[in-house]
């Protein structure tokens, strides 16, 4: 499995995706830097907020892109058959590729996290906010949470790739999964509080409640109130969120191994 991981790493790093990270990272940082000028009272906080949103979107896009390139395309072109000639269980390929992607995502998260922090520090035009953003552990733990978020999306896309015959399907459904999983928290909360009396919407309430058993609530991995306002999340919420994510990933990976092992490449 390790060899599949390292080969994934090398393939990912050699591809032009690293340039892509840096360009996208620069764009993200630029947008975050500029968004500070729309804030009368808290330019750094807004820059951090918008930057973290951009970071999440970028990590999700990279997760889907890398799964597509390192797994989906190999299956489509049947070059995966070369890897499968080795006398190892097919599951090793799936897991190795997944952890390779997750490693690449960690690298992307760290690089962009550093760039974003630089932008947050330099923006704001020297305005002294009353309430400052908190550096250090709160910020990097938030980046870690967003990385876990992208890892869950990667697992979902990977599972789809193992049985999908249409190349674009994992990408499209992966995006829908990323958006749906993250929206779930806010929508469920809105409906549980009565949707401000919107009866049309309340009809969806049982449906949304049922979906919570299928889709992970990815908004539980977003702890940005900590660096932004100094509001640390409850330890229990953090732990349960991580357990939720890791168990969902493990479940998807097991399914992926099963479908991939059974797959007939003709």
């Amino acid at each position, binding site marked *: 499995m390790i060899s599949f991981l390292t080969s994934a790493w090398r393939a990912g790093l050699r591809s032009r995706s690293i340039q892509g990270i840096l360009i996208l990272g620069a764009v993200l940082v630029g947008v975050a830097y500029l*968004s500070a000028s*729309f*804030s*009368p*009272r*808290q330019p750094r*906080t*807004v820059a951090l*907020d*918008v930057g*973290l*949103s951009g970071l*999440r*979107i970028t990590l*999700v896009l990279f997760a889907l892109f890398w799964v597509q390139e390192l797994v989906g395309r190999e299956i489509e072109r049947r070059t995966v058959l070369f890897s499968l000639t080795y006398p190892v269980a097919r599951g090793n390929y799936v897991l190795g590729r997944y952890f390779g992607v997750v490693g690449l995502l960690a690298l992307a998260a760290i690089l962009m996290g550093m760039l974003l922090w630089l932008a947050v520090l330099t923006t704001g035009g020297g305005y002294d906010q*009353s*309430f400052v953003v908190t550096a250090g552990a709160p910020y990097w733990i938030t980046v870690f949470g967003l990385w876990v978020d992208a890892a869950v999306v990667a697992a979902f896309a990977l599972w789809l790739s193992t049985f999908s015959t249409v190349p674009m399907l994992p990408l499209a459904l992966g*995006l829908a999964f*990323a*958006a*749906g*999983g*993250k*929206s*779930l*928290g*806010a*929508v469920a909360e*809105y409906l549980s509080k009565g949707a*401000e009396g*919107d009866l049309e*919407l309340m009809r969806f309430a049982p449906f949304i409640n049922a979906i919570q058993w299928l889709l992970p609530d*990815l*908004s539980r991995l*977003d702890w*940005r*109130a900590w660096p*932004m*306002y*100094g*509001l640390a999340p409850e330890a229990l919420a953090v732990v349960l969120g991580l357990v939720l994510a890791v168990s969902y990933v493990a479940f998807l990976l097991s399914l992926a191994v099963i479908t991939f092992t059974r797959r007939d490449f003709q």
Partner: protein
Amino acid sequence: MTVNPKASPWLVASACALAFVVSAERLKAVPRQTVTLELQVALPLFVQVFMTAGDRYLAANLAAIRAVIVTTDKMRPEDYRILGKVQEDASWLNPAHEDNYYTATAILPWNGELDAAQTILARATKARYFDYQPAFYYAFNLLHFKGDAAGASAWMRAAAEKLPSDDERLIMQNLAARWMDRAQDTDLAIRIVEAMAQQAKRKDFRAYLEQRVARLRSLKQLRAAAERFREHSGRPLVKLQDLVDGGLVAALPADPFGFGFDVDKQGQVVLRTSPPVLQKK
């Protein structure tokens, strides 16, 4: 019909040029369609969440930026209602958003959207436990727009608790105590300011609050007398001296602050907030 092949492109070109010139000239007289819409759309909450791929913080930021860039001198009353909705939704998405509550309190109450502003400020008070300002603005709005002095004083005391330094806390608690002078229910005012005096840690501040309580007790006494005056004479009180002349009070009570008492246009006895102007003899 035979046409000279060398002439026809030139003919076409000149005809088109003529048409262009004529239409440009005519258009100058036609008025332009102006689109002076400042804020017309407030999307449903869940749509805003989906549009940002589930990121409620981004949705809140987008809504707050929309609120910040409106030009209020071009807005009509319907626009303010929409602005109120947009900012209230932003507050739901991220109640701790500072720009949102700040611009909301600066714009909305003064343009007929007090409820939206108060909702936003109440949520911000809860979410930003380290920030005294939302409670402070809520208190001011209660006093200024609703005339609810007792409620405003309660929120002001809550805001005071969040201030870091003792001196600032004292200033705000003083303001809360002074606002109780305007409360309709003097019994409630007396109870609250007495409680504040008991809780005060500094002796000089406690003595000062007890003086305020004494003033309020005198006010209560005078108001009871004014009520009896109205029952006897059938008309509201005009000057305080009438109470002494009518024998309803022995003498006007002394005010420890030296400002004294006054009668407002409705015949209600009130506390003065400045020394009386001396009559020239």
